[in-house]
Protein backbone atom coordinates (compact mmCIF):
# COMPACT_ATOMS: atom_id res chain seq x y z
CA UNK A 1 0.00 0.00 0.00
CA UNK A 2 1.16 3.52 -0.76
CA UNK A 3 1.04 5.63 2.41
CA UNK A 4 1.24 9.31 3.17
CA UNK A 5 2.03 10.32 6.75
CA UNK A 6 1.20 13.72 8.25
CA UNK A 7 2.82 14.92 11.47
CA UNK A 8 0.98 17.82 13.12
CA UNK A 9 2.67 18.14 16.50
CA UNK A 10 6.09 19.16 17.74
CA UNK A 11 8.74 16.77 19.07
CA UNK A 12 8.88 15.88 22.81
CA UNK A 13 5.90 18.15 23.56
CA UNK A 14 3.53 15.62 22.04
CA UNK A 15 3.65 11.92 21.28
CA UNK A 16 2.24 12.32 17.77
CA UNK A 17 5.70 12.52 16.23
CA UNK A 18 6.83 9.33 17.99
CA UNK A 19 3.71 7.47 16.94
CA UNK A 20 4.10 8.65 13.35
CA UNK A 21 7.72 7.48 13.35
CA UNK A 22 6.82 4.08 14.78
CA UNK A 23 4.03 3.77 12.23
CA UNK A 24 6.45 4.61 9.39
CA UNK A 25 8.99 2.04 10.61
CA UNK A 26 6.33 -0.65 10.98
CA UNK A 27 4.83 0.11 7.56
CA UNK A 28 8.24 -0.07 5.86
CA UNK A 29 9.02 -3.36 7.63
CA UNK A 30 5.78 -4.78 6.28
CA UNK A 31 6.79 -3.78 2.78
CA UNK A 32 4.51 -0.79 2.33
CA UNK A 33 5.65 2.27 0.44
CA UNK A 34 5.87 5.56 2.32
CA UNK A 35 5.28 8.09 -0.43
CA UNK A 36 5.87 11.14 1.74
CA UNK A 37 5.95 12.36 5.33
CA UNK A 38 4.50 15.85 5.58
CA UNK A 39 5.17 18.08 8.60
CA UNK A 40 2.60 20.76 9.43
CA UNK A 41 1.50 22.93 12.37
CA UNK A 42 4.12 22.53 15.15
CA UNK A 43 5.17 19.33 13.40
CA UNK A 44 7.63 21.45 11.43
CA UNK A 45 9.75 21.65 14.61
CA UNK A 46 10.74 18.02 14.05
CA UNK A 47 12.98 19.32 11.27
CA UNK A 48 15.41 21.48 13.24
CA UNK A 49 18.91 20.05 13.46
CA UNK A 50 19.55 22.31 16.46
CA UNK A 51 17.57 20.25 18.95
CA UNK A 52 19.74 18.86 21.75
CA UNK A 53 17.76 16.34 23.79
CA UNK A 54 19.31 14.67 26.87
CA UNK A 55 21.68 11.86 25.88
CA UNK A 56 19.60 9.13 27.47
CA UNK A 57 16.53 10.14 25.44
CA UNK A 58 15.63 9.48 21.80
CA UNK A 59 16.78 12.06 19.25
CA UNK A 60 13.62 12.66 17.29
CA UNK A 61 15.13 14.67 14.43
CA UNK A 62 18.06 12.30 13.91
CA UNK A 63 15.69 9.37 13.95
CA UNK A 64 13.67 10.89 11.09
CA UNK A 65 16.82 11.87 9.17
CA UNK A 66 18.28 8.37 9.50
CA UNK A 67 15.04 6.72 8.45
CA UNK A 68 14.88 9.03 5.44
CA UNK A 69 18.42 8.13 4.41
CA UNK A 70 17.88 4.42 4.84
CA UNK A 71 14.62 4.28 2.88
CA UNK A 72 15.01 7.30 0.65
CA UNK A 73 11.97 8.92 2.26
CA UNK A 74 10.58 12.28 1.20
CA UNK A 75 10.32 14.39 4.38
CA UNK A 76 8.54 17.63 3.50
CA UNK A 77 8.11 20.62 5.80
CA UNK A 78 5.37 23.13 4.97
CA UNK A 79 6.99 26.44 4.07
CA UNK A 80 4.30 28.70 5.55
CA UNK A 81 4.19 26.81 8.84
CA UNK A 82 8.01 26.65 8.90
CA UNK A 83 8.47 30.39 8.33
CA UNK A 84 6.19 31.25 11.25
CA UNK A 85 8.19 28.99 13.54
CA UNK A 86 11.70 29.81 12.38
CA UNK A 87 12.52 26.64 10.45
CA UNK A 88 14.70 27.73 7.53
CA UNK A 89 16.82 26.13 4.84
CA UNK A 90 19.58 27.94 3.02
CA UNK A 91 17.24 29.36 0.36
CA UNK A 92 14.78 30.66 2.94
CA UNK A 93 17.64 32.08 4.99
CA UNK A 94 18.81 34.08 1.98
CA UNK A 95 15.33 35.16 0.96
CA UNK A 96 14.51 36.55 4.39
CA UNK A 97 17.96 37.92 5.21
CA UNK A 98 18.45 35.73 8.27
CA UNK A 99 21.84 34.92 9.78
CA UNK A 100 21.35 31.16 10.03
CA UNK A 101 19.37 28.16 8.90
CA UNK A 102 18.46 25.05 10.83
CA UNK A 103 16.92 22.43 8.57
CA UNK A 104 18.12 18.90 9.25
CA UNK A 105 19.45 16.46 6.64
CA UNK A 106 16.77 14.56 4.76
CA UNK A 107 14.11 17.25 5.20
CA UNK A 108 13.07 19.71 2.50
CA UNK A 109 10.87 22.78 2.66
CA UNK A 110 8.01 22.99 0.18
CA UNK A 111 4.39 24.05 -0.15
CA UNK A 112 1.04 22.71 0.98
CA UNK A 113 0.48 21.40 -2.53
CA UNK A 114 2.77 18.53 -1.52
CA UNK A 115 0.22 17.53 1.13
CA UNK A 116 -2.67 17.62 -1.32
CA UNK A 117 -0.62 15.67 -3.87
CA UNK A 118 0.06 13.01 -1.23
CA UNK A 119 -3.70 12.79 -0.66
CA UNK A 120 -4.27 12.28 -4.37
CA UNK A 121 -1.43 9.80 -4.91
CA UNK A 122 -1.60 7.67 -1.76
CA UNK A 123 -3.94 4.81 -0.90
CA UNK A 124 -4.08 6.17 2.64
CA UNK A 125 -3.18 9.56 4.13
CA UNK A 126 -2.67 9.08 7.86
CA UNK A 127 -2.72 12.03 10.26
CA UNK A 128 -0.87 12.09 13.57
CA UNK A 129 -1.96 15.00 15.73
CA UNK A 130 -3.87 16.17 18.74
Amino acid sequence: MKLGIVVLEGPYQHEASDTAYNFAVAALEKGHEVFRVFFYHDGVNNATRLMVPPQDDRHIQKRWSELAEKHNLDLVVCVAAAQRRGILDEDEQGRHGKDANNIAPGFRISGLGQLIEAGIQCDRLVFFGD
Partner: protein
Amino acid sequence: MSDVKKFLYVNRKPPHGTIYALESLEVVLIGAAFEQDVALAFLDDGVFQLVKGWNTEELGSKNFQPAYTALGDYDIQKVYVEKESLEERGLSEDDLLEMTYEDEDDDWAEKSSIRIVSREEMAQIMRDSDVILSF
Protein backbone atom coordinates in the same frame (compact mmCIF):
# COMPACT_ATOMS: atom_id res chain seq x y z
CA MET B 1 -10.18 4.86 -11.12
CA SER B 2 -11.19 8.47 -11.47
CA ASP B 3 -8.51 11.08 -10.85
CA VAL B 4 -10.85 13.03 -8.62
CA LYS B 5 -10.94 12.03 -4.99
CA LYS B 6 -13.32 13.06 -2.25
CA PHE B 7 -11.41 15.22 0.21
CA LEU B 8 -12.97 15.93 3.60
CA TYR B 9 -11.39 18.54 5.85
CA VAL B 10 -12.42 17.83 9.44
CA ASN B 11 -12.31 20.80 11.78
CA ARG B 12 -12.61 19.89 15.46
CA LYS B 13 -10.96 22.77 17.28
CA PRO B 14 -12.09 26.29 18.25
CA PRO B 15 -10.87 29.20 16.12
CA HIS B 16 -8.80 30.87 18.81
CA GLY B 17 -6.41 29.59 21.44
CA THR B 18 -4.45 27.50 18.97
CA ILE B 19 -3.46 27.85 15.34
CA TYR B 20 -5.18 24.68 14.11
CA ALA B 21 -8.21 26.43 12.59
CA LEU B 22 -6.19 29.07 10.74
CA GLU B 23 -3.68 26.61 9.30
CA SER B 24 -6.45 24.18 8.37
CA LEU B 25 -8.08 26.96 6.37
CA GLU B 26 -4.77 27.57 4.60
CA VAL B 27 -4.73 23.95 3.45
CA VAL B 28 -8.30 24.24 2.18
CA LEU B 29 -7.44 27.36 0.17
CA ILE B 30 -4.35 25.76 -1.41
CA GLY B 31 -6.16 22.46 -1.95
CA ALA B 32 -8.94 24.21 -3.87
CA ALA B 33 -6.55 24.62 -6.82
CA PHE B 34 -6.25 20.85 -7.27
CA GLU B 35 -9.76 20.30 -8.64
CA GLN B 36 -10.74 17.56 -6.25
CA ASP B 37 -14.19 16.98 -4.76
CA VAL B 38 -13.86 19.00 -1.55
CA ALA B 39 -16.09 19.11 1.51
CA LEU B 40 -15.59 20.61 4.97
CA ALA B 41 -16.83 19.19 8.23
CA PHE B 42 -17.21 21.08 11.49
CA LEU B 43 -17.75 19.17 14.70
CA ASP B 44 -16.91 19.28 18.41
CA ASP B 45 -15.48 22.72 19.30
CA GLY B 46 -14.81 23.20 15.57
CA VAL B 47 -18.38 24.52 15.22
CA PHE B 48 -17.22 27.69 17.00
CA GLN B 49 -15.19 28.50 13.89
CA LEU B 50 -18.44 29.25 12.07
CA VAL B 51 -20.16 31.29 14.79
CA LYS B 52 -20.61 34.75 13.32
CA GLY B 53 -19.35 37.99 14.79
CA TRP B 54 -15.79 37.25 15.82
CA ASN B 55 -13.91 40.12 17.38
CA THR B 56 -10.21 39.34 17.73
CA GLU B 57 -9.13 42.88 18.51
CA GLU B 58 -8.25 42.27 22.14
CA LEU B 59 -6.58 38.97 21.28
CA GLY B 60 -4.16 40.88 19.08
CA SER B 61 -4.52 38.27 16.36
CA LYS B 62 -5.77 38.54 12.81
CA ASN B 63 -9.50 38.11 12.27
CA PHE B 64 -9.54 35.48 9.55
CA GLN B 65 -13.28 34.87 9.68
CA PRO B 66 -13.89 36.61 6.32
CA ALA B 67 -11.91 33.79 4.69
CA TYR B 68 -14.69 31.32 5.57
CA THR B 69 -17.31 33.35 3.73
CA ALA B 70 -14.98 33.52 0.71
CA LEU B 71 -14.79 29.72 0.42
CA GLY B 72 -17.68 29.77 -2.06
CA ASP B 73 -15.39 31.66 -4.46
CA TYR B 74 -13.05 28.67 -4.23
CA ASP B 75 -15.89 26.44 -5.40
CA ILE B 76 -16.39 24.86 -1.99
CA GLN B 77 -20.03 23.91 -1.94
CA LYS B 78 -20.35 21.43 0.90
CA VAL B 79 -19.91 22.52 4.50
CA TYR B 80 -21.23 19.91 6.92
CA VAL B 81 -21.93 21.04 10.48
CA GLU B 82 -22.77 18.45 13.10
CA LYS B 83 -26.13 19.07 14.78
CA GLU B 84 -25.24 17.43 18.09
CA SER B 85 -22.04 19.48 18.40
CA LEU B 86 -24.08 22.68 17.94
CA GLU B 87 -26.73 21.61 20.47
CA GLU B 88 -24.19 20.53 23.07
CA ARG B 89 -22.81 24.06 22.95
CA GLY B 90 -26.16 25.85 23.02
CA LEU B 91 -25.83 26.87 19.39
CA SER B 92 -28.14 26.65 16.41
CA GLU B 93 -27.89 27.30 12.68
CA ASP B 94 -28.97 30.92 13.33
CA ASP B 95 -25.66 31.55 15.11
CA LEU B 96 -23.62 30.55 12.07
CA LEU B 97 -22.09 32.62 9.31
CA GLU B 98 -23.75 32.75 5.94
CA MET B 99 -21.74 30.63 3.57
CA THR B 100 -22.83 30.47 -0.04
CA TYR B 101 -21.76 29.24 -3.45
CA GLU B 102 -23.05 29.80 -6.97
CA ASP B 103 -24.61 26.69 -8.51
CA GLU B 104 -23.48 26.44 -12.12
CA ASP B 105 -26.13 23.76 -12.80
CA ASP B 106 -28.88 26.13 -11.71
CA ASP B 107 -28.11 29.36 -13.61
CA TRP B 108 -25.51 30.35 -10.99
CA ALA B 109 -28.12 30.69 -8.28
CA GLU B 110 -26.62 31.56 -4.91
CA LYS B 111 -27.16 28.74 -2.45
CA SER B 112 -26.15 28.03 1.12
CA SER B 113 -23.15 25.72 1.48
CA ILE B 114 -24.02 24.85 5.08
CA ARG B 115 -25.67 21.51 5.67
CA ILE B 116 -26.59 20.59 9.22
CA VAL B 117 -26.14 16.84 9.63
CA SER B 118 -26.57 14.41 12.49
CA ARG B 119 -23.63 12.63 14.09
CA GLU B 120 -24.73 9.45 12.34
CA GLU B 121 -24.80 11.22 8.97
CA MET B 122 -21.38 12.71 9.69
CA ALA B 123 -19.99 9.22 10.25
CA GLN B 124 -21.40 8.17 6.87
CA ILE B 125 -19.91 11.26 5.19
CA MET B 126 -16.52 10.23 6.61
CA ARG B 127 -16.97 6.67 5.39
CA ASP B 128 -17.79 7.97 1.91
CA SER B 129 -14.67 10.18 1.74
CA ASP B 130 -11.40 9.07 0.14
CA VAL B 131 -9.06 11.42 1.98
CA ILE B 132 -9.78 12.78 5.46
CA LEU B 133 -7.64 15.67 6.63
CA SER B 134 -8.20 15.99 10.35
CA PHE B 135 -7.23 19.21 12.09
